[in-house]
């Protein structure tokens, strides 16, 4: 494949992915629309939330603003138009636009999820590779049992147990929050402070995915090790470490990265619970607050935005996949 050809191929891929993203946003926005109509109570009451539903003037205004007396299709079209122009409605509880509320919290969630995702992938594949190369050893058995247990642990409970050990009992780490409040810190100290607050939420979120990736990497390594090209490499007299690094790891990583992309949705869901445990000021915490107040527009907006986050994470893993899959880079594909 020529260089120009491959650039065109990547551009084409990017365009098709953006089209896909827009399609998904429209589907989810439509789903949200249907859900508001399917909910008990009339749509104006649902959108006003618990605090606004008793205010007849507000309900009247809402019915007018959203044209709730017009045909459903007209309402849907105007709803989709609003979503595409980033108007996600208004929280009558917080008296602010939903999109502002969400954008304010999004960075904290991204920091948490992306850090946990990268760490889980990095450590999980390393441990899995070690276990796979030493299949049947004591180390392998320990890893296998540990990953089975982690896989069965509720993520929010793991978080609480970390708090119990490292904050309540040992007093080493702050039990909740994003930063220490009411203290003056230099920028460097501030970053350190945030990192300290991140240790437990990130660990609890990453642990389960780490277990999944480690198990996958282990079986993937074992499978790759039995393949002909590894035998060829051995026959050519390549050293053990060169075979592992040059031939096995890259090939073994391919299925792990595929699954990692598919797990992005679950990871984001886990972040929602973990933020509740640690009072982390992100979208999960916002979800919890919105649930307590039945602030429905906020819940709908969070669902839409988190879905977009997951799809973008998927795109990123897809990119990584293209970088590591040998068949993709040699141009044979």
């Amino acid at each position, binding site marked *: 494949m020529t260089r120009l050809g491959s650039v065109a191929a990547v551009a084409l891929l990017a365009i098709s992915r953006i089209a896909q993203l827009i399609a*998904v946003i429209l589907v989810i926005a439509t789903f949200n629309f249907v859900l508001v109509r399917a909910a008990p109570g009339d749509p104006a009451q649902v959108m006003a939330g618990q605090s606004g539903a008793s205010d007849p003037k507000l309900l009247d205004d809402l019915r007018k603003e959203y044209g709730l007396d017009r045909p459903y299709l007209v309402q849907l079209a105007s709803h989709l138009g609003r979503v595409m122009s980033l108007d996600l409605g208004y929280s009558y509880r917080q008296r602010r636009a939903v999109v502002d509320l969400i954008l304010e919290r999004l960075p904290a969630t991204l920091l948490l999820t992306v850090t946990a995702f990268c760490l889980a992938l990095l450590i999980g594949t390393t441990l899995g590779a070690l276990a796979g190369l030493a299949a049947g050893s004591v180390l392998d058995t320990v890893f296998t049992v540990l990953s089975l247990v982690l896989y069965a642990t509720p993520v929010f409970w793991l978080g609480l147990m970390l708090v119990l050990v490292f904050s309540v009992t040992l007093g080493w780490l702050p039990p909740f929050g994003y930063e220490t409040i009411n203290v003056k810190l230099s920028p460097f100290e501030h970053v350190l402070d945030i990192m300290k607050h991140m240790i437990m939420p990130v660990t609890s979120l990453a642990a389960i995915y780490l277990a999944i990736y480690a198990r996958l990497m282990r079986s993937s390594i074992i499978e790759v090790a039995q393949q002909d090209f590894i035998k060829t490499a051995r026959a050519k007299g390549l050293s053990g470490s060169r075979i592992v690094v040059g031939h096995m790891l890259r090939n073994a990583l391919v299925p792990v990265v595929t699954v990692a992309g598919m797990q992005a*949705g*679950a990871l*984001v869901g886990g972040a929602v619970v973990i933020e509740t445990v640690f009072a982390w000021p992100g979208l999960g915490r916002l979800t919890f607050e919105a649930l307590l107040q039945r602030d429905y527009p906020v819940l709908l907006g969070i669902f839409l935005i988190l*879905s977009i986050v997951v799809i973008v994470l998927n795109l990123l893993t897809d990119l990584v996949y293209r970088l590591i899959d040998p068949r993709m880079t040699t141009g044979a594909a």
Partner: protein
Amino acid sequence: MDTIRAFLRHPSGMIGLVLLLVVLIVAIIAPLVFPVSPWEMVGAPFTPPGEDGMWLGGDTLGRDVAAGVAYGARVSLLIGIASALAAMVIGVVIGAMSGYFGGKIDLVLMRMTELFQTIPAFVLAILLVATFNPSLLTIILTIGAVSWPPLARLTRAEFLRLRHREFVEAALCQGERTWRIVLGHILPNAISPILVVTSLTVATAILLESALSFMGLGDPNLMSWGFMIGAGRTVIRNAWWMSVFPGIAILVTVLAINLFGEGLSDVLNPRVSRRRA
């Protein structure tokens, strides 16, 4: 018979089965051991474990944590099994249609499955339960509605594999009706991997239910493990037992189901399992 004998020789599968039986027995005998409802106050608030006849301690209102854990087993198993069955029904219907009819139907259904697999399932579950108000039925249907995609993909793959086998072609030639071919000929041959994945879905369903009730979206009339952990969260400094024991209960139950399911998978589909090992 051979299958049962093979399972009895599967060590981790047997550990899972034994643990699962223990949880099941606790769920069944809960009302005998704890005749008083787990919502009733039976002692002083914050009673530490072992005191006042409460082995696992008392909660903020003096309710027995042990009773809650025992009754919680009923809720978790009921919701876990019922929602896995709901997911199985949805997944099998979608997967069977996709695999049997192929073409445009397959394309549309698989796109839908992919979409459901990518979006954050837990956030969707929160939204659905919050919309239709938390009750036993809405929770079961919601967990079913977000857990079916793997079952649909599996069923589709099995149907694609079996669709052109001789016995199916023979039934077609004899003019049998589509639903009879699907239910009477293809599905029985595809059922064992479907059952294995359904049993593993019970485990994820229990985890999902516990996370929902932790967030305050459980059925308000049912004592569930997730709810207990959520209630213990704010008082973890004073009453660690309130959140530790229900969590162990979830861990043991989910681990038991996973071990049992994987043992079942090894015994029923040795071909697939050997590739995975």
